């Protein structure tokens, strides 16, 4: 990695001093700050989803429990699923997209910094809207999958479903805007010399994730619009008595829903593929195979959706086709796992916290993958679907997979983001508590599912043999709580401590470790030129050892976009349009007109504001 000054001098010079205060966060268009906003917000939502899960686990801790009413239980399990998927794992991934993608590809920011701010504000408002149902005692209660026709006015008369379908539409807009942004960023803002096949694996997997977001979210948007028309305007898309077909919802939902699973896991694949080589001190094994298997998983992801619907009785041919395509996905997934082990093989493993979490990820993800193959078989799935076996399966994939990998990413990039090293001993304690707690919580679910316990039940009777398993699971859930309290303590302690992180604490291979921790607003004083897949390792090899600590520079002459509050105004407009739709019976069309006016004001001001 040689560096050349390709930067042109600009007349428009402004200081890159530290800007603080609430206003600076509201108007920020800096991808790093937006990344931190995403991370902080998503972590709060993650804790809320976790508390919801704990309440569910308390209720299920013993048979015929009355800790939660069935109404409350249904709201909590719906919000737990919706929150973890849309408000925790996706935006935690988005935190890494935001913060890391520009750094990893040697860019100064994302392609559209203001669109990026807009995405965040829409996400925040959507998340708040979704949760505001709790304030009205009417949180969504129809499950994160919202199967029609239970969601119809007839069977869900309250506001519960409205909060859900509107909240998801708002969140969809945030995801789509971010999807366009990062797609273009990766294609167009790579440093000179960074060809596609030299991109860090996290960038590759994030890129594929954006493709999935862009192609999957419009489908759920349409499904939700049809539901909205049914509920608000009295159409009958999903109403059987008028000829509508609830199965259409299932198909549209899972055409989105299955790619969504890969939207949740592919960024984690990327994070692990960044960390493993660094701590194995050895390049990623089978880079090209990793790229292609990721792309193949994403592509196949659009052809397997009906495996969520084997129990609907689609007929033998459809079952066979979707079963075989599903099993096919195991092959590229297996290739990824083998290549990770291949990366470690013959390496020199540096047993640091990020690596611990990566290893936990691989070990747990293997189990999630294997149980996945078990219900790729429709006859077996007829016993397993809608039972705790499936709950076990996808928690091994999404918690054992995504959350472990995201945590690994947090420990790995924390020094870069905040200039401070998280405590290793607390980190390892966190890991062991999480690994044990996770397995205590979710491993018994395999058994209790096979023993006949269905999902989404607010209680279960004595005498079916579920008691002991559920007790262990509840105990495990509390261990998980302790694990995350350790993490929070680690963060607080570190934040209070001195700024002790060097630019390159882990002997990293990628560009972000060449600049100070935390990076300056413009990231790279000089835009780097890339000659290989592990540019920093190459440079270090050329110079015979560690590089000197990079110095902070003034950055005068580097043009960065101005802060702006118009993206936030536009985001408020977006949310207002949906709220006005929901309040149409009360506010009338005037509400919609005002909301659209706010939206247009925001968009026009933003569009005509100088960069």
């Amino acid at each position, binding site marked *: 990695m040689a560096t050349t000054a390709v930067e042109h001098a600009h007349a428009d010079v402004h200081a890159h001093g530290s800007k603080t205060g609430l206003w600076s966060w509201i108007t920020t268009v800096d991808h790093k700050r937006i990344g931190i906003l995403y991370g902080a917000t998503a972590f709060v939502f993650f804790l809320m989803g976790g508390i919801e899960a704990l309440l569910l686990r308390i209720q299920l801790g013993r048979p015929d429990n009355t800790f939660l009413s069935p109404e409350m239980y249904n709201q909590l399990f719906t919000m737990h699923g919706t929150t973890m998927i849309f408000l925790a794992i996706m935006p935690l991934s988005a935190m890494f997209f935001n913060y890391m993608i520009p750094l990893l590809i040697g860019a100064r920011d994302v392609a559209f910094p203001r669109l990026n701010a807009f995405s965040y504000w829409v996400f925040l408002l959507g998340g708040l809207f979704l949760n505001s149902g709790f304030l009205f005692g009417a949180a969504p209660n129809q499950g994160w999958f919202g199967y029609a026709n*239970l969601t119809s006015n007839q069977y869900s008369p309250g506001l519960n479903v409205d909060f859900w379908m509107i909240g998801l539409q708002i969140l969809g807009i945030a995801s789509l805007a971010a999807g366009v942004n990062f797609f273009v960023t990766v294609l167009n803002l790579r440093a000179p010399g960074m060809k596609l096949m030299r991109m860090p694996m996290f960038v590759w997997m994030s890129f594929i994730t954006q493709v999935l977001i862009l192609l999957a979210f419009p489908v759920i948007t349409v499904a939700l619009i049809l539901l909205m028309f049914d509920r608000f305007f009295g159409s009958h898309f999903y109403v059987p008595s008028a000829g509508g077909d609830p199965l259409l919802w299932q198909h549209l939902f899972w055409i989105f829903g299955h790619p969504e699973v890969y939207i949740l896991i592919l960024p984690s694949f990327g994070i692990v593929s960044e960390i493993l080589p660094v701590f194995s001190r050895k390049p990623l094994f089978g880079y090209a195979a990793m790229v292609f298997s990721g792309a193949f998983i994403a592509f196949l992801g659009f052809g397997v959706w009906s495996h969520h619907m084997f129990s609907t009785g689609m007929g*033998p041919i459809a079952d066979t086709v979707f079963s075989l395509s599903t099993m096919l996905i195991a092959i590229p997934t297996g290739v990824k796992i083998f290549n990770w082990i291949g990366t470690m093989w013959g390496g020199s493993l540096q047993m640091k916290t990020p690596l611990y979490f990566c290893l936990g990820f691989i070990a747990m993800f293997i189990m999630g993958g294997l149980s996945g193959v078990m219900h790729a078989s429709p006859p077996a799935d007829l016993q397993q679907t809608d039972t705790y076996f499936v709950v076990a399966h996808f928690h091994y994939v999404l918690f054992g997979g995504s959350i472990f990998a995201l945590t690994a990413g947090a420990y790995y990039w924390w020094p870069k983001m905040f200039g401070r090293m998280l405590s290793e001993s607390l980190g390892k304690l966190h890991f062991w508590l999480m690994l044990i707690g996770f397995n205590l919580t979710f491993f018994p679910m395999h058994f209790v599912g096979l023993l006949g316990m269905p999902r989404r039940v607010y209680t279960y009777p004595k005498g079916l043999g579920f008691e002991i398993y559920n007790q262990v699971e509840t105990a495990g859930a509390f261990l998980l709580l302790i694990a995350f309290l350790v993490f929070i303590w680690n963060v607080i302690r570190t934040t209070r401590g001195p700024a002790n992180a060097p630019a390159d604490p882990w002997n990293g291979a990628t560009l972000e470790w060449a600049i100070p921790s935390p990076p300056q607003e413009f990231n790279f004083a000089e835009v780097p030129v890339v000659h290989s897949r592990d540019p920093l390792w190459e440079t270090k090899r050329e110079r015979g050892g560690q590089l000197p600590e990079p110095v902070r520079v003034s950055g005068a002459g580097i043009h960065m976009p101005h802060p702006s509050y118009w993206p936030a105004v536009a985001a408020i407009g977006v949310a207002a349009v949906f709220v006005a739709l929901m309040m149409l019976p009360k506010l009338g069309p005037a509400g919609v007109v005002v909301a659209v006016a706010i939206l247009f004001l925001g968009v026009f001001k933003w569009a005509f504001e100088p960069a």
Partner: protein
Amino acid sequence: MSFRPALRRVVRQAPFLLIALVLAACGRDYPQSTLDPHSDITRMVDGVFMNTVWWALGVFILVEGALVWAIFRFRGKPDDPEPRQTHGNTTIEILWTAIPALILAMISVPTVRAIFKTYEEPSGAEVVRVNVKGHQWWWEFSYPQYGVTSANELHVPVGKTVFLEMDAFDVIHSFWMPQLGAKRDVFPNRKTTLWFRADSAGFYPGQCAEFCGTQHGRMAFHVAAETPAEFDAYIKGLQATGTPPAPPAAPDTAKRVGTAGVTTAALAAQTPAAAPAADTVAGSKLFAAKGCVGCHSLNAVKFSKGLIGPNLANVGARRYIAAGTLLNTDENLAHWIQHPWSVKHGVLMPELGLSDADARTLAAYLRTHTGK
């Protein structure tokens, strides 16, 4: 370091623990277990599943083993020399693409065969046909061949093929009999099917498996698989409710008890007490006056279609009430009639504000309806 030997001990015992768990899963402590098949269909499904399990277990041991081996074998220190920088190995990568593909082929062949088997449509005079209808939150079973209907307790003959044609009254449910027929969703706008042939008598619990609203958690049912003679008697009893007024029948304490689910004590508790005739008259009046008739029929043959409550023609002899939730004792029955929402909050059966005496009278009256 006492940790290592302890770990080794756990690792050595793990297979035994696992086997113990699996064995326990097959036993009678788990009446709703999918691992304890009692019909041809569930045995086949179990076979497909266990085939996958063994392959998965092999893969699991190899891959997790390789991972653990790599973790211990390749542990390094910061000042170790840089390891050899390998970027990949085409041969080995092709190999580990091909081998999983072969394993998947081994799994998919029995899978596809079983898929087609589950969709077969049995025919012939011997086949017992049952129409299943899911309601919020109970199950309706009717026998088109015999012209009778019942609820929440499905009686089938052992050794005969049972063919279920299913749909839903309101929203999507899923009919799940873990030990007899696996599961299939039921829809308000289409028919779905299941078939099975029970191979051993028993009283098997089942449950709705698709989230269907507030009381999804307590939408259970039971399948009584009995000898053909017992099954015929059951049907005849239901048919007899078509010619009321039926004299209050003596309780049938000799009724067969299944292998699973019900203990002797529970059985004793649910033995119906003979109701005095005066109560029957009072109960009958209450049944009409309190509006029970608006939703429930006491006749398994002639009843108006579209009633939203379960048919109660043989409720006095059912082992459970409230969709498989409560044991059918006099006390429970009265409590359920009086305070349905304290048992199943949000259930469609309203709180009628019955007095204790009324509830007891109604329960006693219902007890006389045994379908015998």
